[in-house]
């Protein structure tokens, strides 16, 4: 019986019961939390190395009460969304055209391919020299970090659009302009949303690195200050908040796709 169950669970791609799926997820998450409790409350590690859950909770309440947490969250969100939206607004149309028009690809491919293998973190010192350590520099880091990746990924989405869709549109009487607006653009939308969802995750990495290198506010700065002041609990607050903000953004993208592109989720 047990062997039978194991066999069923480890057959590739075989679906399992929804309750079982939720149960497994909850079990793993609570086990991790329990392990955290055991090593901290059990005195297995020093509080200065790994703070206990209640210490992190206290730090959360304290930073919330003095307004510092919300201030840092607001600064980071403003920086990341400004950089990300600026990048997306340019990269999405440019990527779509690059994937479908050879002339656009010929013009920008060499530059894009050079830039996309250049880690944006290598540009941070230069950006600090040029525009300082404030809001603009963080926006620039996020922008440069995701822009070239977005272009390449979206160009690929655009190039993958089935050529038969264009052919059939022409034979139905569509003009070249109509083929772009009524076929190419809608056909790329699911891939564009997926690309935005993936690159948003990368944007967080670039932002936090930029804030760790040089900043006067933001979640990365908050973590760095907590390290300097030997407040590991506050470091954990910063990490958890970043994690939850990322999770929330991801959920927004997921629901946006179901809402805006119902045909990708219907069955």
């Amino acid at each position, binding site marked *: 019986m047990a062997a039978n169950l194991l066999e069923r669970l480890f057959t590739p791609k075989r679906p399992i019961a929804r309750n079982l799926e939720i149960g497994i997820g909850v079990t793993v998450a609570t086990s991790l939390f329990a392990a955290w409790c055991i090593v901290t409350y059990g005195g297995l590690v020093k509080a200065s190395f790994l703070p206990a859950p209640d210490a992190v909770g206290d730090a959360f309440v304290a930073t919330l009460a003095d307004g510092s947490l919300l201030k840092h969250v607001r600064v980071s969100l403003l920086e990341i969304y400004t950089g990300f939206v600026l990048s997306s607004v340019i990269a999405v149309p440019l990527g779509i055209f690059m994937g479908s028009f050879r002339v656009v690809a010929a013009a920008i491919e060499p530059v894009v391919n050079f830039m996309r293998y250049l880690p944006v973190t290598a540009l941070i010192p230069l950006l600090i020299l040029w525009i300082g350590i404030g809001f603009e520099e963080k926006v620039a880091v996020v922008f440069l970090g995701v822009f070239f990746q977005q272009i390449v990924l979206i160009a690929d989405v655009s190039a993958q659009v*089935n050529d*038969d*869709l264009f*052919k*059939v*549109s*022409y*034979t*139905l*009487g*569509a*003009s070249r302009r*109509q083929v772009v607006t*009524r*076929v190419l653009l*809608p*056909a790329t*939308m699911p891939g564009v949303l997926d690309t935005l969802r993936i690159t948003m995750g990368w944007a967080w990495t670039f932002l936090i690195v930029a804030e760790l290198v040089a900043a006067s506010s933001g979640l990365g700065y908050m973590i760095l200050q907590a390290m300097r002041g030997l407040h590991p609990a506050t470091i954990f607050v910063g990490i958890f908040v970043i994690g939850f903000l990322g999770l929330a953004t991801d959920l927004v993208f997921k629901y946006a796709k179901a809402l805006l*592109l*119902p*045909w990708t989720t*219907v*069955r």
Partner: protein
Amino acid sequence: MGRVSIEEVSLEFRTRRTGTIVALDSLSMEIPDKQFAVIVGPSGCGKSSLLTLVAGLNDASSGCCRVDGRVVNGPGADRGMVFQSYSLFPWLTVRKNVEFGLAVGGLPAPERTERALRHIEAVGLSGFEDAYPVQLSGGMQQRVAIARVLANDPEVLLMDEPFGALDSQTRSIMQELLLGIWEREQKTVLFVTHDIDEALYLGDVVYIMSARPGRIIDTIEVGLARPRRYDIVTSERFVGHKRRVMASLHSEVQKTMNLTPPDPGESGSTS
């Protein structure tokens, strides 16, 4: 009107590996208005390329295609095309898919909806107007594609192995459906297939195409009474035609596969 003239059309393309390939070699064909013409040939013989030339999606190396005397110079709504891959717009509902050609043509919304619904009904998909293509089976998707092209009211219908991806039961239902529609709508059809039964069952005339370079090696006036029922495939006349097509195609298919025909006397006449 939809008279299609194909005048000494050649199509060559260059590849880096094999040099110049002659896909179509000075091919001519005259399809009168309202005729159901079928081209049957081995895969890779250039029969689909010929359709794209008539559709205006590709340019011939020499020669030209005409529809009612007008030289084909790019694609247009007068020549509707149905592809093997259904090629529905996945982001549009069935109704919006069928309305596409009317919408880009600028027909007002109420009118195009009315026309779309009529054609959706004609292919038996009433009740599925608001479904998305992913929710439909292959046969249903191809029926939407047919409704979409017919709603546009083209003079010529170009069909590139439209039932090639369907299972054999669905395929024969689709053939009957298409014949019914064609008898009602009276349009010129140029239909490409590699299925001999399909060619003879549907066509007024069946053109047999050779392997590369593509030429017409035989033309069969089918001459079976209409409306046709599926059991004509067992009639003597049908079987006789079938024997003739099979004999021509057999050696052509062997040629494309680089196999030597067992009877060189038969195939020697074409080369």
